[in-house]
């Protein structure tokens, strides 16, 4: 049986797709057979971030509707063993995702995979609901910014009350992933600290991804950023994946390096 992980946030643009791609790839790098599914019907993007946009023939909706077999729609990653992408459709039909259909496809994937990563759309509509409904675990992505934290809180509330786990009297195992963290701004008191967000949302901290140029560069070329193992973001995601698999690896809080400090001193005296 696969473990189903939803990557969700409520708010858009906080890094859900980047995170889904990085986590799925990281799990596969550790030998786990993993599939990442795009739930953002109409606004397909995981294919682009994973670099397989030119290989999409059939999609999640085709499989749900019985127009294609699952193995026809799954795209095998060319870089990493055990990694597959299930892209979504560009249809504008909002009802294309059905609860029964999603359950059926997840059930079929569960037979064959170790992990299923569900990349949720923003908002709290059908796609976001179905992405989290069947989940065993959730990665709640938030930026250290007020609207993002508020929306994450809303999503946490929904998962705690409206998921299948909640209906069965159990609970989704939820983790907080803080992204776009800028230690310099935190130092200046311009940005919420890790402790602040963690205290407000009351979730265990899965990781902190610092603001990092490598994220945009990786998406430019369709490479999950975790494959850039020299970059700060790549390292942060590698640690995140290790903790997600239950390894006891300490979370690294990004701090100002020596250069940052010097930079600040110079700027102050300028």
């Amino acid at each position, binding site marked *: 049986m696969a473990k189903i992980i939803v990557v969700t946030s409520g708010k858009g643009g906080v890094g859900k797709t980047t995170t889904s791609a990085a986590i799925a790839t990281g799990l596969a790098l550790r030998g786990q057979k993993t599939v990442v599914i795009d739930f953002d019907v109409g606004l397909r993007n995981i294919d682009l971030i994973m670099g397989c946009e030119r290989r999409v023939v059939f999609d999640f909706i085709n499989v749900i509707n019985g127009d294609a077999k699952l193995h026809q729609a799954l795209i095998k990653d060319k870089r990493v063993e055990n990694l597959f992408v299930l892209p979504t459709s560009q249809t504008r039909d909002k009802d294309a995702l059905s609860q029964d259909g999603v359950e059926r496809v997840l059930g079929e994937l569960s037979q064959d995979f170790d992990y299923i990563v569900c990349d949720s759309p923003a908002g709290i509509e059908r796609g976001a609901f179905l992405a989290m409904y069947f989940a065993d675990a959730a990665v709640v992505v938030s930026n250290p910014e007020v609207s993002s*934290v*508020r929306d994450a809180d809303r999503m946490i509330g929904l998962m705690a009350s409206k998921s299948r786990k909640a209906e069965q009297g159990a609970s989704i195992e939820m983790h907080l992933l803080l992204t776009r963290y800028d230690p310099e701004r935190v130092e200046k008191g311009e940005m*919420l*600290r890790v402790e602040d967000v963690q205290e407000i949302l009351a979730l265990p901290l899965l990781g902190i991804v610092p603001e990092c140029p490598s994220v945009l560069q990786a998406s430019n070329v369709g490479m999950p950023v975790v494959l850039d193992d020299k970059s700060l973001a790549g390292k942060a995601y590698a640690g995140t994946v290790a903790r997600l698999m239950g390894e006891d690896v300490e979370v690294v809080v990004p701090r100002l390096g020596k250069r940052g400090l010097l930079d600040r001193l110079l700027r102050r005296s300028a």
Partner: protein
Amino acid sequence: MSLFGFFGRPQRKTAEAARERLQILLAHERAGAANADFLPRLQRDLIEVVRRYVDVDDGQVQVKIDREQNLSVLEVNIELPSGTKASGG
């Protein structure tokens, strides 16, 4: 550089303000999103009751709520037309 920054430490960091605002807001939102929607109904009911005694327009009754850490203040403002006399129920 702002004047605050030049003459001394700013009185309050913005991150601190963000934390406090979130703590207050989320405490209320978690307490029940459904309860937050009662203000329009309260306003309508108040107008109805007040009208039994005084002839007021919809715009003359205002209901406001101010949420703080440990208490919420509900402010009801009813503007009576000049020369109003109780019409008796």
